[in-house]
């Protein structure tokens, strides 16, 4: 049996050397130079971890892409047909090369196994959270140590707008969202009609808004600035317009803003039900 290594050993060794050298150069460059600029950036603790994950993923994917490019380029240069030379003939088929099969299975198995383990670890809703919802009663490991002092914000989705309720400030509900920096936020996401998905992109939070259910997501904004809020669940006619811009501000600016909101929304606040984790649990009001 003619093995691949016996026939093409020098070629493979040359390819591997080129691949390792190029990967050793490009992977760190991507991680250190491109990584800090990968979304969703580092506006919060959660989005910072997500940006780190993306940088790791890019660095791991890089050698795979480099391998393909190197192999393709090497073949183009060395196996191309030269004018006047004899036509190239295909070699005999490869069969039963145990070392090749073992190498292939080992490398791909390690990569897939590492990514599976890494992904599971990063998705585990612990201190670093995944940014997704964690159900009404998060397991202990999913609750940040700072949860006891978290600012609770209820996020209410409806066709087609997001509104936000602050139980710590008289239950005022607003159409705008401002959050204090360096303060743990406890989002309670729900809906009053169909399923929406609250996606605060730069904060790294994406939690489904389901009628009759509260979905909890923790996040700590680390930088001031604007963040986009979108609906990530196709929800009807104006789904594409169900977006707004939130702002992370200093604590003093937040206090000023929320005080203004309490005054501005006083006529509506009088009519709101007492704060409840699930907004209008039953459809009390309907046409027809």
């Amino acid at each position, binding site marked *: 049996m003619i093995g691949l290594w016996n026939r093409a050993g020098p070629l493979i060794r040359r390819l591997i050397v080129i691949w390792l050298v190029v990967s050793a150069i490009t992977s760190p460059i991507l991680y250190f130079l491109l990584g800090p600029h990968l979304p969703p950036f580092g506006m919060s603790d959660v989005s910072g971890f997500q940006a780190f994950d993306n940088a790791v993923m890019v660095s791991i994917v890089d050698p795979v892409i480099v391998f393909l490019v190197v192999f393709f380029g090497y073949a183009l240069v060395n196996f191309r047909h030269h004018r006047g030379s004899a036509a190239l003939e295909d070699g005999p088929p490869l069969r039963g090369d145990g070392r090749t099969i073992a190498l292939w299975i080992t490398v791909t198995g390690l990569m897939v196994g590492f990514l599976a383990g890494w992904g599971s670890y990063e998705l585990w809703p612990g201190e670093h959270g995944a940014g997704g919802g964690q159900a009404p009663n998060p397991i202990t490991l999913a609750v940040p140590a700072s949860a006891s002092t978290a600012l609770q914000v209820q996020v209410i989705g409806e066709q087609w707008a997001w*509104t936000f309720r602050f139980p710590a400030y008289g239950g005022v509900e607003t159409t705008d969202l401002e959050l204090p920096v360096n303060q743990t936020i406890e989002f309670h996401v729900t809906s009053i*009609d169909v399923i929406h998905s609250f996606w605060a992109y730069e904060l790294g939070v994406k939690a489904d808004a389901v009628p009759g259910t509260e979905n909890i997501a923790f996040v700590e904004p680390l930088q001031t600035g604007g963040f986009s809020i979108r609906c990530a669940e196709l929800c009807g006619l104006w789904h594409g*317009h169900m977006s707004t811009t939130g702002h992370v501000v200093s604590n003093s600016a937040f206090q000023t803003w929320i005080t203004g909101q309490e005054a501005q929304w006083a006529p509506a606040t009088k009519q709101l039900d007492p704060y409840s984790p699930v907004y209008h649990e039953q459809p009390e009001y309907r046409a*027809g």
Partner: protein
Amino acid sequence: MKKVVGVAVGLAVAVALVVFYIVDWVLVSPPIATASSTGTQTANLVLQTVAAYGSAPNPDWVSYFEQDAQGQWEHTTFFTLPAHSVINVTIYQYDGASGFRNPLWAQVRGTGDGTMGLNGKTMNAINFADAAHSFTIPDLGVSVPLQGVPATGSNPCPAGPCDTSFDHNTIKFSFTTGAPGEYRWQCFVPCAAGTFQGWGGPMQTLGYMDGEIYVR
């Protein structure tokens, strides 16, 4: 040869279906109305809301109408408004109340002083359960609740467009348009009777309870 003919026929059918879809979409889109200019930087927009559109294809759907410069009622929710202008809006509201699911929308917003005129009375909110519809432009921060006519009224309008001899409320307010652009607007009352929780049909269809405002 048979293959070529088959491919050509299939392609022709596909193109015909695409053209049919586009033409159908264009033809069923409501017309775009222009607000009546009343001078520099001001315009009037006159609307009415009815319990039933009264015409095919959805005669029993709730709907908005817009009054054109000749005083004729047009079935549309697409308006062109001047940029950076004060828009004086009058809405004749003929429908009964079904109420907001979210009482937040019962408050008037974005009208300058945060008030509206309801049958001549200045108000900053209504009871959320008394709302029939709302006129809300989320991106301009404008939202005005429209009080429903009492169920005990003596002369309800059966189908639109309605005239003021029928039971109605008159709502007046003004808002200022910003920079040129396209803004969607909608009703936030789940008012689509006969659909799941009132959110279907006219709530999901342009020309009834949703529309676009073209600020030029």
